[in-house]
Each structure stands twice: as structure tokens, then as C-alpha cells.
């Protein structure tokens, strides 16, 4: 059976937990999205834009230093080379096309690292739509270059001062805007979170990563033993995993352990959380005994989120994907290694996936694929301090 079911459930997870004001709009979105799946024109245009605008397929690159260093074959799926510098653009081009089909002229989005904000602003500019991006004021400080990029792309960046002033609060504020302007506005969610159909739809748009990887491995005459990706909301991870779900390969998602799981300052709901409802769906969640959502922590703004996409919760409970964690310090070490030895500055988010190479067994004939979800330019001033 293919998941989710009609109401967006992945086992007990997922669903639609949203204010009634949004329900008609969510229903409309569901219908419009279902239509695109059968719409050959839509699929053709998407494919063409992936190629000519995003720059797909992104390379599957053999990291020779890392391969020697670990004594096995390490391949990097170079989403950092996609237009705007991260996988987020795949989803935004997909949803942008859909929004245009639906006749929407006003786009809103939440952003943490600013990568989804930049990708949304880019898609909005490309499709000729008005764009407003909600961003926690804490993130505005630590991801300044992306704020500037969004503004140059013609988007309005709206600082969010509530709560932890990071991604979770930006998403709260975006949902409030959506409730207010639901008739005219398209909410472009940036990860596999939110109410159905977002977790499914964003997964489908990101699945291009895994599809390409499969073809590229075949061309290289290789089979992957491990596929590793970082998990914030989980879109780059599910994007590379999805094509391989039924194959014999270890799928490993890496959550941010921040200052260490025992410190309480981390972003690892799959490792330490319990099921709960936040932002429209049921999934593992960092929360206290009462159900109040806890603040997350990670040096990587794009991972700094107390929730996770519902499909990951399902895959964890089912045992199909293994989820591990990597601390801030370990991620920085991996960042430096890739920068100095391969000449690639990875995003701090992606550095979490890289750091996990330290924690798996390596053998000469084993192949590990890392989803290099984005580039690290946005993180320079954070790393400059370290």
C-alpha cells in the first residue's frame, strides 16, 4: 500500500490538525495537487525547469580524500550545486508551478536557515508572485547573508519575535498569516511537515534526488550500502530515501544532537521525543510531560526544529530507516574536513550527515552516499567564530 492514506496518515502519524478556517483551502490544495500527478503538461514543465533553471541532475561525486580517509567509497549527492545552493529549490519550483496553476498570486513561507526562504523568494520572482517570508529574529541574526538574498530577490522578510525566535515560531506566524489571508494566499511549506498534503507533496517534489542517485549509481556500476542524510523537517532525507525504500540498503537519517542529547539542548525528536501534534500533523515531538513544545537547539539553523515530518516517525517505528544523531562539535569537525580536503564548503546541516561517517563501519568495497543538501556560504560567520 502506498502511503499516506487519503487523509494523510502514515500509520498513526500525519493527518490534518488545522484550524477550520484552513480546511477548505487544504481540500482545494489536495485536489489541485492530485490533478498535477496525472497532468502530463505539468510534469513536463517541472522536468524542464529542474533541468534548465535548477541545474538538475546534480552530480553524484566521488569524494576521493574521504574515501581514502575512511577506507571505503564515499559519494556525495551534490544538492549544494542546485540553483540557490540547496535542495530546497526542488520543492519550491514544484509548489510554485502548482500555485500558479491554482491562480495564487501571494506566497508566504517560513524559514530557518533561510535556504527555504531564498528558494521561495526565487520561485516567487520566477513565477511573478508576491512573496513574504517569516523568519525568527534569532535566525535573522545568524543567517544574515540569506536575509539579504531574499530581499534582493524582492521578498519581504518578516521578523518573528515570539517564543524561541527560530523556525518553529516562524512557522506559527506563517500559519497565522495563512489563516488570515487564506483566500488569496499560497503557503509554501519548506519541509515534509505541516498538514496533509504537504508531507506527501514535498516528498514527491524532493524524490527527484533519490531517483537521480539511483540512475547515477547504476551508471557508475555501483550499489549503495548506506545512504545518509540530515533530518531537520526531513525533506532532503526523504527525498533521497524514497526511491530506495524497497531496496536492500541502509537508510540513515541524522538528527542534530546540539550540545549533546543529555544537555537537553538539541533537535532530536526521533531520538528523544514522543508523538504529539504540532503545525498540523502528528509526529515525534520535543515536548514536556504536559505536551508543551520544547525549544530545540542546533548550530545549524535549518535543523533547529522540535518536530519532524510524520513519514519519518512512521519509518522509525517500522524500523526501515535508522536515525542517529550528531553534535554541533562533530558537525563542525566534518565541515572543516570537507572544506580543507575536498574543497567543498558544506552547509552546517549537511555537515551533520557527513559527520555520521565517523559512526558507521567502513570496508573497502562498501559504498556510502551522503546527501550534501546545501552549501555552506550562509554559515561563514558562525564558523568564523569557531
Amino acid at each position, binding site marked *: 500500500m502506498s502511503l499516506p492514506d487519503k487523509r494523510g496518515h502514515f500509520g498513526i502519524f500525519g493527518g490534518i490538525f488545522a*484550524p*477550520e*478556517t484552513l480546511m477548505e483551502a487544504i481540500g482545494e490544495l489536495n485536489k489541485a495537487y492530485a490533478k498535477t500527478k496525472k497532468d502530463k503538461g505539468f510534469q513536463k514543465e517541472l522536468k524542464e525547469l529542474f533541468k534548465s533553471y535548477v541545474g538538475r541532475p546534480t552530480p553524484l561525486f566521488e569524494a576521493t580524500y574521504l574515501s581514502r580517509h575512511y577506507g571505503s567509497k564515499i559519494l556525495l549527492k551534490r544538492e549544494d550545486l542546485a540553483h540557490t545552493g540547496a535542495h530546497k529549490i526542488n520543492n519550491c519550483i514544484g509548489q510554485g508551478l502548482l500555485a500558479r496553476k491554482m491562480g495564487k498570486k501571494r506566497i508566504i513561507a517560513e524559514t530557518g536557515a533561510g535556504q527555504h526562504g531564498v528558494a521561495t523568494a526565487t520561485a516567487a520572482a520566477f513565477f511573478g508572485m508576491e512573496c513574504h517570508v517569516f523568519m525568527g529574529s534569532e535566525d535573522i541574526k545568524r543567517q544574515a547573508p540569506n536575509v539579504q538574498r531574499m530581499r534582493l530577490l524582492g521578498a519581504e522578510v518578516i521578523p518573528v519575535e515570539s517564543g524561541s525566535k527560530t523556525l518553529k515560531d516562524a512557522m506559527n506566524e506563517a500559519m*497565522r498569516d495563512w*489563516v*488570515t489571508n487564506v483566500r488569496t494566499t499560497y503557503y509554501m511549506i519548506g519541509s515534509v511537515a505541516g498538514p496533509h498534503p504537504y508531507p506527501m507533496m514535498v516528498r514527491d517534489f524532493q524524490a527527484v534526488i533519490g531517483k537521480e542517485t539511483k540512475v547515477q549509481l547504476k551508471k557508475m556500476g555501483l550499489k549503495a550500502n548506506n545512504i545518509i542524510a540530515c533530518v531537520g523537517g526531513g525533506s532532503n532525507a526523504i527525498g533521497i530515501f524514497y526511491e530506495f525504500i524497497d531496496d536492500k540498503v541502509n537508510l540513515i537519517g541524522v538528527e542534530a544532537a546540539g550540545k549533546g542529547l543529555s544537555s537537553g539542548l538539541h533537535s532530536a525528536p526521533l531520538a528523544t521525543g514522543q508523538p504529539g501534534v504540532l503545525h498540523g500533523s502528528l509526529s515525534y*515531538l520535543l515536548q514536556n510531560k*504536559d505536551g508543551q*513544545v520544547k525549544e530545540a537547539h542546533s548550530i545549524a539553523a535549518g535543523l533547529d526544529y522540535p518536530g519532524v515530518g510524520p513519514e519519518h516517525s512512521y519509518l522509525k517505528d517500522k524500523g526501515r530507516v535508522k536515525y542517529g544523531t550528531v553534535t554541533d562539535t562533530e558537525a563542525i569537525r566534518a565541515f572543516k574536513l570537507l572544506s580543507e580536503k575536498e574543497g567543498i564548503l558544506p552547509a552546517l546541516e549537511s555537515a551533520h550527515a557527513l559527520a555520521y561517517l565517523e559512526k558507521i563501519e567502513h570496508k573497502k568495497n562498501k559504498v556510502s552516499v551522503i546527501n550534501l543538501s546545501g552549501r555552506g556560504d550562509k554559515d561563514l560567520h558562525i564558523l568564523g567564530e569557531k
Partner: protein
Amino acid sequence: MIASIFEKARKENRTMLMPYFPVGYPTLSRSKKVFLNLAKNGADLLEVGIPFSDPIADGPVIQKASTVALKAGLKVEQVFGALNDIKKKLPPTIIMTYYNLLYKNGLKNFARKAAKAGVKGVIVPDLTVEEAKDWLAASRDQVETIFLVAPTSSDARIKKISKASSSFLYCVSLTGVTGARNKLPKSTYVFLKRVRSLTKKPIAVGFGISKREQVNELRPLSDGIIVGSSLIKAYTKAKTETDSLKNIEKFIKRLGV
């Protein structure tokens, strides 16, 4: 139970006052006094908010009040404890909160404890009829569940929600979050008439209401009027607790439901 109160008010040809106030704001004991004060000042039904960390249907006033309560460490247990202490002096009480607090506390457990604390019903703005099956099964015989309808709800949805909603329907006056508005849009009135034509159940209207003129216009269209943010604002404006409570009295008088 809740239905009978609406019936009585209908017979008396009266629109009910249904004030909302969050537990734990500004402190647990002070919010208890607010509830007692509201009871004395003519609340027909009391809406007790349990603060949630991520209230996506709420505007800045309720957000801030929630933050204050949660920063002080408010727990759901304490909410039930507080309500239990004063339940004999309160009008029928309805809890308003977000689904995760029900879910994490255990649906059955939450329903049982709420009923024991004298709570008659719950309103959960992020629980749609489609996802409510587990909660309805767990809370049957304990508390009623009132669902919301919005101006964007289609006729078919309003009918479906009306069927699922116990005792009355909560009409969200406008597309937006909670918070006082100077004027309600014309669409509010059109919407209320539409809901009336689609359900036999009583209806109450909330979101944005802060003024006597609004109440005068809403009275013929609605069986109940819910005020939250403007009440909190009135309470917060004064410096001392005594003055705050006086402000509430004044506010309710001026509203003239």
C-alpha cells in the same frame, strides 16, 4: 447540560455572555479570581483557556498571556486543581485549548480529569471533525465537544460539523486569529445568517469582538457572544489586581451583552 442553558436563554430571548480567559494569567491564583469575578458579573458560560506553547489560532494578546502562564510553569494538573477548587461558584465551564495537550495527557485521562474538575465541554481549535474520532470515543460520557465553523467553511462542511458538534456551534467571526478588531467585516453577518440557515443548533460567535456596537449588531444573529482578547486587555491595563478586576466589571457592563 450546556444545551439546556442555551435553551433557557432562548426562552428568555437573551443572548449569552461567554467570556474567555486563560488560566495562569497573570498567575494561577489571580486567574482564579478572574473566573469568580466573571461568574459574579453575568457570565452564562465560562471559557477557560489552557495555555499552549504554540497557539496558531491566536493573536498577540492571547499569545503573550499564554507565554506568561507557561513561563511560570503552569501544568494541566494545576488547571484542573484550580477549577476543582472553585467549580461550585462557576457557571458551566468549557475548556479551550490545543489538541496536543489532550493527546499528550492521554485522551481518556484528560477527559476524566476535566469532568471531575466540573468542566462540561471542550473546544479545540486545531482538532477537525475528521481527526476527532479517538477523542470523541475517549471523552464520551465525560465532556462535550464543541466544534468550530469558519466563514470559509462550505455549506456542506457546516452541516457535517453541526452534526458532530455537541450543544452548539462556535462560529469564528472572520478569517484570522483571535484579537480585538475595531470593526467586524460585513461578511461576519452574512456568515452568521448562513450558519443559522444550515443548523438548528444554537450558535455562538467569537474572534475580534470588543465593543458594544458590535454586540448590538451580533445579538439578533447569535445565541452567544465570546470575548477573549479584549477582556484580557482590559484586565492588563490596570496596575493593581483590584483595579484589574474592576476593569473587567466595567468592560462587561460597557459591552452590554
